[in-house]
């Protein structure tokens, strides 16, 4: 018992998340929520599936009140959302966090040949949270194509046509929602409340 107490303290006081990771996470959660809700407001002006007669998103999930308001929010929050991802990308490159903080060969190995259940959960957790990076980049890439289709006509061509581009841009909404569910559950399972607190609340100042 005597030996357990100090180690527990050291585990508790150890910082699980670097402050830049927490800042990125917070800004991403808030700006992505604004992007999703204002994006659905724009979607409702002419639903991707079915046009004006198509199914509309319920008011509760929308932000902006009307089409112009949704566009204001969307094209204001896009700066915060994309610049946040940009500095974070530079940060993980410079600090080489991308080498050991994201999914790697060791996670695949743990899933294929490992016997440790906790390690396997952790591998899944890393696979899932790594997957949000390409999803966010896809949302920005398709978004630029829809925002400036004349200047970035090659983005529209890359996806085939306008409808395909709209579908892919819209598909990032269910992808992000699915991600958010899987990521929350796996974070809870892999690190419990301690991990959640370390990303959201601990040592915020």
């Amino acid at each position, binding site marked *: 018992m005597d030996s357990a107490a100090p180690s527990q303290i050291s585990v508790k006081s150890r910082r699980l998340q670097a402050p830049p990771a927490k800042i990125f996470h917070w800004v991403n959660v808030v700006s992505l929520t604004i992007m999703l809700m204002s994006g659905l407001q*724009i*979607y409702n*002006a*002419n639903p*991707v599936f079915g*046009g004006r007669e198509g199914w509309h998103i319920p008011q509760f999930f929308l*932000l*902006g*009140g*009307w*089409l*112009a*308001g949704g*566009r*204001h*929010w969307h*094209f*204001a*929050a896009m*700066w915060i959302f994309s610049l946040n991802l940009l500095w974070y990308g530079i940060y993980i490159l410079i600090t080489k966090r991308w080498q050991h903080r994201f999914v790697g060969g060791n996670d695949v190995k743990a899933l294929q040949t490992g016997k440790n259940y906790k390690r396997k959960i952790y591998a899944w957790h890393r696979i899932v949270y790594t997957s949000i990076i390409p999803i966010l980049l896809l949302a920005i890439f398709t978004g630029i194509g*829809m925002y*400036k*289709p*004349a*200047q970035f*006509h090659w983005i*529209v061509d890359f996806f085939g046509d*306008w409808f395909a581009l*709209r579908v892919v841009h819209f598909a990032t909404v269910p992808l992000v929602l699915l991600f958010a569910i899987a990521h929350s559950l796996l974070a809870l399972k892999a690190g419990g409340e301690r991990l959640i607190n370390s990303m959201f609340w601990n040592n915020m100042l």
Partner: protein
Amino acid sequence: MSQNSNNPLSRRNLLRLSGYSVGGILLTGVSLTLVESLAGKATEPLNQKLEELLLKPQTPVPEFPESAIEPDALIINTYGFTPDIDLTTFRLIVDGEVDNPLTLDLATIQQLLRQSMVIRHVCVEGWAAIVQWAGVPVRDLIQLAKPKPGVRYAYFISADRYYESWDLASCLHPQTLLAYEKNGVPLPVDNGAPLRLASPIKLGYKLSKWVTQITLVSELRSRRGFWEDQGYEWFAGL
């Protein structure tokens, strides 16, 4: 009485609580609407700088083959009504800060250089259609009118009292046309006959139908466009 109001679930407290929450919802709605226009005003100058930077004023946007035309995709949108225009008395006026104001009838306009293009027409609502348009480049009309040096904007006035204003660079873009032909046939009245704006570099609400007047100015007036005056973005570049 005091006993009663101390009970958090008393009828009075519940009523008070429901009053607060209705007020709260109303307040949230009002403040979000206020913040909506603030969010727009805060970043619109930045977004417009980006749009001006992206616009290549003299570079044509790649066009599509005629086989790519989507004849049913172009949705007809108007803010109000379809005006009655007598084609025999119709005149296009080009005026404002110019040395050579113009009053042109349709026959004269159709004798000017005709340009045809197959481009993507993109609506602010999110839909798009590949359309063939043919007409006279707005650039040619502006050059004929000999604008004075300070001109920076053009107003487009329509027969249905729709109005729009554009930056001069976008007006002078080689694919900004006053079109009188759509998908190989004379422009239908519902699409803006006899003359409408067509361009791949602006959203649909900038592309006025039934244009009767182009006024070149050096400063924007307080009224900048039908939808812009209600809160839509002014530059609306693509």
